């Protein structure tokens, strides 16, 4: 029979009970994405690690897993970047400053920040994949001297879909960060690169022993990026992928997010490639 301490704990905690968070700021970033700044009740810290996610909980409507896109070095609040994709995200897009939402989490295994210290980092973000990577990028920028060379490769379909435009502008001006951006299709006022994100990889100067590549993007992107990274001889355990799966509970119970023997919500969403290689249906 379970001992009392466990039972006591179980009496109090419900895995599914959200805490209140207040939207303190909203901004339309693109036609389909909005940026939300959220404070937890009593300005409590979320205590997340870059790469983790929360379940945004709207009672009566449902829940959606959303990456935490701000760095834990920013205290007292956190940020989300939400694409209008369906039921919950549409309702969320209709909410204004001052509105309250439910939050569960933070959940999952984020990026192994300690392991990354002292290493060169090659970020590869496609589309909405910048949301979880931004948390780590800003963390690294805030603690810049703890890390080696930093390169950011960013890609999206077209210039109008670029997220975090102001911030990207700042990253591109940093002298201690190499930043490259590309779009699949240009636009008349677009002066940057046109082409797939994979085309930027060969040009990056990589010290194989030192470099960790951190990748997040639409499912289709991983296969092509991996080919290019393998060509660069980056060891498989130094390639970190943040994956998306259907998620319901966020706590390893509902089975939706299963990737082979792993539950993406608990064992991921960040996996090193050596853990996924050869697993049917992983990539």
């Amino acid at each position, binding site marked *: 029979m379970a001992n009392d301490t466990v039972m006591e704990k179980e009496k109090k905690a419900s895995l599914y009970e959200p805490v209140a968070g207040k939207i303190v700021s909203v901004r339309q970033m693109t036609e389909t994405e909005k940026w939300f700044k959220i404070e937890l009740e009593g300005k409590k810290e979320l205590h997340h690690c870059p790469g983790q996610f929360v379940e945004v909980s709207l009672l*009566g409507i449902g829940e959606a897993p959303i990456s935490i896109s701000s760095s834990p070095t920013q205290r007292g609040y956190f940020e989300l970047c939400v694409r209008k994709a369906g039921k919950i995200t549409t309702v969320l897009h209709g909410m204004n400053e001052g509105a309250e939402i439910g939050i569960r989490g933070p959940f999952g295994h984020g990026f192994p920040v300690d392991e990354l210290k002292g290493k060169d980092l090659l970020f590869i973000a496609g589309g909405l994949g910048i949301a979880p990577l931004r948390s780590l990028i800003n963390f690294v920028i805030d603690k810049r001297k703890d890390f080696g060379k930093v390169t950011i490769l960013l890609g999206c379909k077209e210039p109008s879909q670029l997220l975090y435009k102001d911030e990207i502008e700042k990253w591109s001006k940093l002298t201690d960060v190499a930043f490259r951006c590309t779009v699949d299709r240009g636009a008349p006022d677009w002066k940057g690169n046109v082409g797939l994100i994979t085309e930027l990889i060969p040009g990056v100067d990589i010290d194989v022993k030192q470099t960790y590549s951190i990748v997040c993007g639409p499912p289709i992107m991983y296969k092509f990026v991996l080919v290019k990274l393998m060509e660069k001889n980056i060891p498989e355990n130094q390639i970190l992928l943040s994956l998306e799966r259907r998620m319901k509970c966020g706590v390893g119970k509902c*089975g939706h997010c299963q990737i082979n023997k792993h539950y993406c919500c608990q064992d991921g969403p960040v996996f090193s490639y050596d853990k996924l290689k050869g697993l049917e249906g992983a990539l």
Partner: protein
Amino acid sequence: MNIKSRDSKYLKGACMKYNLLEKTKVSELVNALKKKYRVVGPKEKENLFVYGDIEDAGEIRLEHKPPILSLKKYYLPQEEQLLAFKFKEVKAVPVEVKKENLVIFGAHTCDITGIICLDHASSIEPRDSNFHKRKKNVLIIGIECLRPCDEHATCVTMDTHNPKGGFDLMLTDAGNNYIVQVNSTEGENLINEYKFLFKESDAKSEDGLIKMRQEKEKWPRSLKVKTDDLKKTVDSGLKHKEWESVKARCVSCGNCTNVCPTCYCFDIKDDVDLNLNNGTRSRVWDSCQLKEFAEVAGGENFRKDRKSRQQHRLLRKFSFSVEKYNRFFCTGCGRCTRACMAKISLYETMNNLVKE
């Protein structure tokens, strides 16, 4: 595979205790239990069996084939409220599990194994407290199988045909009596409480029990793959042509997972009353066989076709669970085969996977 309950409530092998219960006293025992507990057990329903509430001791069918749904429904109800709330507010109140002392009377060893499996899955941190709160208040009185249910049952290969723990008392038919194996302190307390119904057991009955269980190893096996080869068979058989036949037949109805005693996947849904005042958030059984199960925004689906979903099911039963919990999540009950509208048979699929 070694079947062990991780639950400390069950007595360890060395201190096995046995009693006898005269068959004519079973009704008396059930009626006595009913005064204190909600008693459920196998009952007959339209030529099939179901687990249901026992209103009258005579309803219990100790001789039965696996009921349509397994014991899972008493631990992870088909629909379970998690939160109650006022619509559009952000605070919700967890819905407490109703405390109810339940006796399950007459469960087969395969179904008892199913609960052991669910216990493993629910004990991984963070623990599923609702499951454990329910389990704490359940007493299981099993009935030992004396013959295989039918050719769909694969309990011999799964090594679940003999009692291996997970129950409080186990009844084994021995002519005029049931031999009652005591497997937990709660079971022992129960015997003490109803002492007047039980008799002391004797060496002859206990010896007979051991011999009978050894004989059971000779039962026919419809699942021909050796127990130790089950994982390998599924892992290395994903490209086998048998899967094309499974794919062509499967209709993605989800029956196989609903009736499975170890499938625990669920969806979470919100309901709001018609006045838009009050609502609840519940979990409801879900099935990895349904197309939307693994679909994400943008239309990507990680298990798009029926083949990959059926493979996922067998991997969960024979491979992932071994890596994660060091045990199979198939109890050999045969329900998935019996319930399949497309006549996909677990043992036939497995047997074919080892053919050229």
